[in-house]
């Protein structure tokens, strides 16, 4: 995307799992299906964990002399409180390492990729602006909120323009289904598919005795019945955007919004949980799953399957019952002009994503 726009991209990357930065980036471009690493991309082996970005003094200054704009897209997206120090380090401390570098470089524009959920716990409209919030659903939201404020203060002080991009929940490419990770939207679906495959093996054998212990039964034509109620909000839904929309929107905003601002890259049509349940049941030939409102959910005790599903998806529950509405007036003004819009997460796109997930065994090569 950036290369097509004529940028020279200096990609700061660190080694991981015994793979050198070059190997990692090469693997990424291979996965993207490009013909090797584009000539305009130069890999800079470094590490945001270090205040000097893991560079020698000479390299640090050389890099600083070559940078006009910086895109920060390195986050820890974990939600777990017990990983707080790790998440704070990645999302807050390491950002400061890069901001410090920006201040010492000729950088005039800092692009910070945040999240729509930096808005924190609230109902109703979330403005496309920096807001004061003290209540969050998880440490990820909290650290991104703090990072936004900190970046704004720092850039303001240093005279660097700042764009903050706030995507909602990103899934794979809506046209190909391609994705590297199968968390977020995928995870609850993956749990159901896992259970289905556990009791209904590929050669069609059914493990009735084991399934019965979970209240699961089998129907005709390979269908499997899972008596599962999923708690969902009366209104709203899950705000899902495909990665190809995000990259297009990001690129358009970056090119257009030159004064620095905050932009929500979100979907105008949050997807009700009941729709996703419907898609899941249709695609995977499952029956018995239904979305219920909280009062109905609590009116009867949970069965074993519900307890299991809720335990595994607990961390995602607030996003399944989300009543936040993301104002995207400013982003839309740019995207509409460029003819960029977020596709509705319909059954066709769901199918594309799930076909890809199944084809790559949900990211597990074994």
């Amino acid at each position, binding site marked *: 995307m950036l290369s097509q726009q004529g940028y020279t991209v200096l990609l700061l990357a660190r080694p991981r799992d015994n793979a050198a930065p070059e190997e990692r980036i090469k693997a990424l471009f291979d996965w993207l299906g490009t013909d090797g690493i584009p000539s305009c991309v130069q890999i800079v082996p470094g590490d945001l964990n270090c205040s000097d970005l893991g560079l020698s003094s000479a390299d640090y200054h050389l890099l600083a002399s070559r940078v006009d704009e910086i895109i920060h897209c390195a986050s820890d997206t*974990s939600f777990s409180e017990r990983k707080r120090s790790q998440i704070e380090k990645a999302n807050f401390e390491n950002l400061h390492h890069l901001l410090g570098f920006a201040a010492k470089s000729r950088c005039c524009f800092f692009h910070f990729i945040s999240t729509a959920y930096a808005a924190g716990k609230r109902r109703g409209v979330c403005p496309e602006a920096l807001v004061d919030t003290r209540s969050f659903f998880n440490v990820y939201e909290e650290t991104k909120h703090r990072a936004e404020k900190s970046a704004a203060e720092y850039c303001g002080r240093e005279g660097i323009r700042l764009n903050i991009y706030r995507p909602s929940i990103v899934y794979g490419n809506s046209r190909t289904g391609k994705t590297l990770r199968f968390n977020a939207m995928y995870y609850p679906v993956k749990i159901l598919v896992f259970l289905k495959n556990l009791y209904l093996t590929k050669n069609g054998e059914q493990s009735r005795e084991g399934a019965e*212990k979970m209240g699961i039964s089998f129907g005709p034509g390979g269908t499997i019945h899972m008596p599962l109620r999923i708690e969902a909000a009366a209104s709203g839904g899950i705000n899902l955007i495909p990665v190809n929309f995000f990259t297009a929107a990001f690129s358009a905003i970056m090119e257009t919004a030159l004064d620095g601002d905050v932009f929500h890259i979100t979907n105008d049509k949050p997807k009700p949980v009941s729709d996703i349940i419907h898609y899941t049941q249709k695609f995977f030939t499952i029956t018995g799953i239904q979305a219920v409102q909280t009062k109905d959910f609590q009116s009867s005790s949970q069965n074993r399957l519900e307890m299991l599903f809720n335990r595994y998806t607990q961390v995602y529950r607030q996003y399944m019952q989300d009543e936040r509405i993301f104002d995207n007036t400013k982003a839309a003004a740019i995207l509409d002009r460029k003819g960029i819009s977020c596709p509705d997460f319909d059954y066709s796109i769901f199918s594309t994503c799930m076909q890809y997930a199944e084809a790559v065994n949900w990211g597990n090569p074994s």
Partner: protein
Amino acid sequence: MNPLEQIPEDIRRTAARCRHYAMCKIDYLDTGLCPPAKKTPYVSYFPQGRMDLCDALAKELIPVTGAAVDIISSCTLCGSCDRQCHFVTGMRPMKIMQALKAFLDAFQEKGEKAAVIPEDELLKALKNIVGHKWATNDPAHLLAYANDPFPLADRQIPGYVVLPGSAQELVEIVRFADKAHIPAVVRGNGGSVFGFVFTPGIVIDVNRMKKIHLDPDNWSAVIEPGVTSFELQKAAAEKGYRVNTAEPAATVCGNIVCTGLFSTWANVYGVGADHIVDMTFVDRHGTVFTANDKNAPNVFGFEEAVLESPGICTEARIRMHPVTDDEEGLLVPFTTLADAVSFARDISRRRIGLSVGILGGHYLSTFISPTQSLANQTRDVFSSILEINCVVSVIGDRYARSSIRQMVPCVIDSSTFRMFTLGLPQLVRSDLADIVEGLESDRPAYETVLSAEMLPVLEEMLAPSSGTLAAAVDEDLRDFYEALYNRPHMTDMVWLTMFRIVSARMSRHKHMFAFLIYVPLEPMDVIQELITSFAEIAEDHGIEHDLGFITPLDLGKRGILEYDYYIDHTDNAESEKIRQAMADIEPMVDKLSRSCKGVTFLKYIFSQGCARKENFLYA
């Protein structure tokens, strides 16, 4: 004849790797003992001795003697050794037995004659005491008593081996040796790992002295010195009792005298003198005394020094403990050792549970895995996916288990333990990682995976059965393993903790060099400092290492900690590493011992195993 041409390299290598843990000398899998060894219990007739013989012949340390011919010929190739040895070490000694037979056939086909070892006057005198069959100077027998995996002791072939059949014969041998000024040492079961039992003189092997008399009215058992932990535990269990014993193949009397009995049961049954009702010794001059004789040497006292043992124990009366019929085991998982220690200390001081032990990830995974590769994979699953880095293993009655369930978020109870054990090959192949990865929970993953609603799913995933487990071993052993694991006791934590037949698996991949230290359980800093120091020293010397176990003692005020180094005992370079590491370890522990109350290196308790625990825990 050149043995190197007759005994293939891989056979020689395997033969040299025998760990001498003596598990082939107890019938712990109901396979039956090696038939010739059952009749003639010299170490040399057991698979351990046969492996030593193969090694010695290959290295041309001894000639082919009359005894060597008899040892090799007597092997029936029944295969018991393969099953027994594979269970704990993963080795297959049958190939060695076959190679020995092939070697002997070639030797005899060439018309060569076995060397005849002449009797000397000393041997004749020993035979006069014990009978012709039970004293020998044949090198094929002697070499089986010449070494162990202790890396800092060289091979020392004794002059004579003698197997007394009674306490009286044993006393006469000691008196004879004293009078003749010949050094004599006693070996329990021929199993030793500390290099203490070698002599150029007489080795007294007590393997014929195996009488056990249970005295339920006095909650005690009277035993001869050849009785092993396994044999005594079995006898006690049949009558509804339990004894606190150590490694199954170790002799009980030898253990008491050497280090004192300790195990995870020491949490309630104590250590040292706690186990002893009375003991009879013969000192080096042949004087017999009992521990309870007020005029006898005080074996209950303790001095922080390396001392000689008070003598050879010829009989011991030790305590038996009652058992209730509702005992079961459970494992309480933890992510951090500090939390595990804190919990173990807490239940110990609240008198909850009987056996209590903190096991590191290596111990847990190795204990339950029938092969080393499965153990390695299991450890990965436990630590990386389930976030279980250690467990507190508890045996308790229903009240104890109920209390523990109220104290912690989740446990691995006896049925879940059975499920994990029998489904282990499926566990390491399962999609569990994929499912757990997305959890993002604020609690460790094991709490979710071990939740009540998940257990039926786990059962489906693991398909636990003896057949599932047996699929992990060599194909020709699968029927045996399947039948073995059909027996309920093989997955019963109470039985496994009493009989400890899986503990020798710790040395499956390499010989384990264990350091044992009595420690205070709080503050945690002392344990942490010890563990860090052991780890750093091992790293400095390039030695594989890991925490072994910690068991609370005396209501959690003290504990015993084992830290293990792992070495290839057949590799001189590894021995040298241990030698150099020891030079760092001893001052480190001694220094800590001086600055922290309750830290005592077990090396100072060697030969003072009868001491009152208060004398070394609180001195």
